[in-house]
């Protein structure tokens, strides 16, 4: 792992490896703002935050630096790296409600859905195409989406980049289409190549001033099973030669407990990093939509940062073997077992110790016991998660890159998250400059 900080054009330092948090509600945004502002020493290992473009209108009043405040943002909060993820894959693979929310994202005097595209009888709003796609039958869905969207998806490239620039983001993510289906992968990769090239050209050719002070990230959103197929090489080639400053890898339909898929993902990251090394590029590889624990495994295989949701499983974990928890209270991250425990599980685990919380972070210290913690359970477990992740990132950064896997293997071997152990058998030979 390169031990030097990667300097962004905005002047901020991205210390590698890094972890970003992904708030998705106003409540989570408040937690992130409070944590970053009030606990600088306890959150200094967290690189920053990322928000979905559809969530940003809700989060902006709390997290945006365009909002005037009575008490100004702390210098420390200003140093955190900010990213908006356009989440364009939602148009293809997301839920109806998320698609509609994305169409309502406000732009200058209009919304994303009101951007016009050519229709048979004249210009029609983009959202009409999305609505038509929502209503269509499920059979051959990927093919229908490709036919419907690919000729128009380029129309929103300018708007989504401008949206990110207007909101003072440090890394601008380009337009993309997801690679979701084996039968259509060739066409989807070709469209992604075309959109990535357009997005980079738009950023560097049209937003010339912004491109001098901001970095650009190309996004590859891919169904994890495609990385285990012959198309993997094509995707590696596309990612390695796109010319972006950063590379984002968003895993769809991915369960990190499935060893075959996880190995394919890690192998893909290794291949990509080795090509970057051959090209003498230090392009950071960012993993989106993964558990932070899997991001640690990916650090041993060539990835440099992970973007994880706050104390929840990633949004797009569609795997039926790992469904969304029906537990209303949410899960508490156990810092020793490295498991996400329900309230009842935590009570059972701590019963012999007078229900004392198994953590000494500032939040857990304040509450002391599980019984007292229940009063503020939702925010407590998220604050605790940020503190714990910060501590874990501190440990990871303190270890020499050549032995990171051994350190993590030791840590996970002592926990109950032993399913991750096989991923720590390898350590990518990072080039030290």
């Amino acid at each position, binding site marked *: 792992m390169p031990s030097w900080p990667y300097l962004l054009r905005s002047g901020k330092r991205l210390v590698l490896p890094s972890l970003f948090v992904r708030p998705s509600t106003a409540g989570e945004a408040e937690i992130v703002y409070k944590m970053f502002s009030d606990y600088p020493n306890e959150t200094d290992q967290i690189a920053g935050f990322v928000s979905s473009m559809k969530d940003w209108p809700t989060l902006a009043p709390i997290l945006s630096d365009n909002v005037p405040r009575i008490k100004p943002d702390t210098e420390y909060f200003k140093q955190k790296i900010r990213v908006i993820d356009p989440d364009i894959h939602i148009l293809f693979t997301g839920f109806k409600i998320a698609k509609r929310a994305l169409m309502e994202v406000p732009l200058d005097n209009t919304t994303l859905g009101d*951007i016009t595209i050519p229709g048979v009888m004249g210009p029609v709003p983009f959202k009409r195409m999305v609505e038509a796609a929502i209503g269509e039958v499920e059979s051959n869905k990927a093919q229908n989406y490709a036919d419907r969207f690919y*000729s*128009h998806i*380029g*129309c*929103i*490239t*300018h*708007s989504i980049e*401008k949206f990110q*620039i*207007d909101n003072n983001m440090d890394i601008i993510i380009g337009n993309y289409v997801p690679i979701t289906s084996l039968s259509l992968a060739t066409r989807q990769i070709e469209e992604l190549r*075309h959109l990535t*090239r*357009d997005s*980079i*050209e*738009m950023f560097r*050719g*049209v*937003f*010339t*001033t*912004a491109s001098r002070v901001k970095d650009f990230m190309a996004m590859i959103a891919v169904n994890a099973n495609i990385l285990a197929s012959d198309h993997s090489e094509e995707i590696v080639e596309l990612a390695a030669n796109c010319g972006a400053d950063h590379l984002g890898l968003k895993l769809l339909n991915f369960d990190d407990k499935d060893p075959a898929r996880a190995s394919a993902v890690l192998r893909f990251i290794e291949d990509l990093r080795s090509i970057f090394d051959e090209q003498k590029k230090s392009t950071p590889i960012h993993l989106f939509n993964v558990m932070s624990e899997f991001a640690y495994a990916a650090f041993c295989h060539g990835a440099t940062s992970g973007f994880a949701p706050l104390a929840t499983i990633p949004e797009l974990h569609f795997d039926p073997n790992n469904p969304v928890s029906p537990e209303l209270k949410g899960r508490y991250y156990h810092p020793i077992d490295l498991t996400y425990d329900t309230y009842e599980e935590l009570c059972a685990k701590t019963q012999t110790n007078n229900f004392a919380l198994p953590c000494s972070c500032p939040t857990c210290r304040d509450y002391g016991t599980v019984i007292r913690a229940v009063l503020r359970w939702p925010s407590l477990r998220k604050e605790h998660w940020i503190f714990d992740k910060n501590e874990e990132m501190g440990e990871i950064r303190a270890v020499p890159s050549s032995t990171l896997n051994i350190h993590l293997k030791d840590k996970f071997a002592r926990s109950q998250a032993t399913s991750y152990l096989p991923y720590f058998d390898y350590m990518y030979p990072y080039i030290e400059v």
Partner: protein
Amino acid sequence: MSEVLTMVMPTLLSEEALQKVPRREREEYLKRVIVQTIKNNPEGVTLQMLRERLKLIGVRTLAKYLQILKYTNQIYTRNIGPTILYLPNSQLMHPAFERTFSLTDKELKVSLLKNRLGEQVFIQEERKDKYDRHIGAGILIPKDAFPAFIRFLRDACNNMGAT
């Protein structure tokens, strides 16, 4: 001849993406593409050659942009019979020679270039906003004459002060 026909083209935005770029930014982008194309082909290009390769731009618009680029001294022309050849005006000597003078809403960029007439001091107006930079008028002064030009400006300034 074959070298001229195989032009080196810059990466271009697709038509669908370009259509959604606001008019003013689109104009700046297209002018930049034309300048880049001419710079990539220092032996010169004709209007016909540009028209065949830059299909995003109509021929009248292309001719208009070429005139603007010529008058802002970013390119120059040479007549070969009935054909007008567009050539890049300048090659930057070294980025270290570049200086910028900030005015209220714009900058004057001073750089040392080398072209067919020798070394030249190039003064160009540039406006920047949050998204893009807009190139304005530019003048070329031979490097040898530059000290005399500065003296002339100083005298002019002193005279204005005296009145």
